[in-house]
């Protein structure tokens, strides 16, 4: 697997997420990599942060970044975290790598008041065109070849929203970005699904 660079510059969803988080909030970042997002949130929003990672190299990198990091496997749940321990639980560009999609979403809303989820949209027109041309898409937001991809779930904006509805999750806010990180605005849901490369959601649950 080729690791992706997680610098702030090429992570436009970081700014969207930062905008949704209040200073002083407690934030848990799942699959936090080297802790770049948490570091960004700590530096720019003064949050208190913890991250979860499975990969040894990322554990070391996050510790070097001075981030609180807990080594663990998201597929096995978030057992070390208490109910409603965080204001926000972030899953940035990681949902598509998790097999137990419903499980992780429910766990996020168990340990946090709000879930923030970003993921690459497989219905993005360039991805669709690539498939129509006979090849699996490789792009800024889907940077892997099919044979070395960590992604195990392939879904679109509309798929995700259908799942949220089915699970009774409330979409509080949504931000759709194109390949260059620019916000995509469109009143037609199907067009949005076609124009967005990356989607960022803010979810809560009826309590």
């Amino acid at each position, binding site marked *: 697997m080729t690791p992706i660079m997680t610098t702030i510059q090429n992570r436009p969803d970081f700014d969207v997420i930062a905008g949704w988080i209040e200073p002083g909030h407690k934030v848990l970042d799942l699959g936090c990599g080297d802790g770049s997002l948490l570091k960004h949130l700590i530096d720019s929003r003064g949050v208190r942060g913890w991250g979860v990672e499975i990969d040894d190299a990322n*554990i*070391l990198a996050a*510790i*070097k970044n001075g981030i609180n*990091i*807990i080594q663990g496997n998201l597929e096995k749940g978030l057992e070390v*975290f*208490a109910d409603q*321990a965080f204001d926000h639980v972030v899953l940035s560009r990681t949902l598509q790598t998790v097999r137990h999609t419903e499980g992780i979403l429910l766990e996020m809303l168990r340990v946090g008041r709000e879930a923030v989820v970003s993921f690459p949209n497989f219905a993005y027109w360039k991805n669709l065109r690539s498939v129509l041309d006979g090849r699996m898409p490789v792009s800024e937001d889907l940077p892997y070849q099919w044979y070395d991809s960590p992604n195990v779930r392939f879904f679109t904006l509309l798929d995700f929203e259908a799942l949220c509805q089915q699970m009774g999750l409330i979409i509080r806010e949504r931000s759709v970005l194109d390949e260059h990180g620019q916000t995509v605005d469109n009143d037609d849901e199907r067009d949005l699904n076609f124009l967005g490369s990356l989607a960022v959601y803010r979810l809560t649950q009826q309590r």
Partner: protein
Amino acid sequence: MPGQSVGVVHSQRAHFAQPLALRSGGVLPAYDLVYETYGALNAAKSNAILVCHALSGHHHVAGHYADQPGNIGWWDNLIGPGRPLDTDRYFIVGVNNLGGCHGSTGPSTLNPASGKPWGADFPLVAVVDWVHAQARLADLLGIDAWAVVMGGSLGGMQALRWSVTYPERIRNAIVIAAAPKLSAQNIAFNDVARQAILTDPDFHGGHYYEHHTRPTRGLRLARMLGHITYLSDDQMGEKFGRELKNGSFTFDFDVEFEVESYLRYQGDKFAGIFDANTYLLMTKALDYFDPARMDDGDLTATMARSTANFLIASFTTDWRFTPARSKEIVAALLANGRNVSYAEIDLNFGHDSFLMADAHYHGVIDAWLRNITL
């Protein structure tokens, strides 16, 4: 291995004349602690690290003695210039705990009241007693607060206990391959080890010194049993498999399998140098360890007393104190919103992994320490 050894070291002795009230209700009227220090205490006295030892450890943590170049400290691979516990940065203290058999007051030292070795009359001590004694050593060294208290196994438990007993005197804690308390299985293993010693005819109720003998048979068995629990099944399999010492079965009870040879060697070596009463005392300290007891078993409430930043590490192949046991501590710290990082290190050496010089393992400690504020 990057970095260098700290080189020639020497041990020191401190006498404490103030009585120490013990967890058991007993009182130790006075006592000695032997200790070693590496590196220099800075002017602000803010760079001191206390390294606590485990069951069979002692104060000789790093370096070697001028007259014993082969006597290398038990955690030498971690300590020295350019190593994670960098002696150019930190002032590192190792101490032999009360009840030990390496120079500090314990069952094998003279009881001033009787003029004879303490033997079975030495009071049983708990981890919290060690912490109080270590705090007095800190006073003596002019250390108001440790930058870090750390250790592996029983050593990690002392770091944990420090954080809740003297929260104002410890800023960071590194707890490796530990548990918040022993399981029934842990205690069971300890009791078999103790029974081996207690039933040795040479034990003489703990007063074997007066009989000029030592319960080496029992101690040897205790160590052999302990050793099995320190290693992983995989590692034993890889190291020894079913290899036979002489290539074929001999159909007797002599050493046949390599693993038998190894365990007997380890048992003999240990029984030759360690004190049986100390072994009994250390295993009891392990069994008693349960800081959450003061909060009716609520570890989260106990860790609320602590304000230190924590690094917790466990090893995937450790079945004595499994990663799940470390995660109990992590969960209790998280529930209190404490700063904590947790690394689950994939090393094949079972519980003993904490003593190994693995690049990732040491890298994690090194990186974490570099971010602490001195």
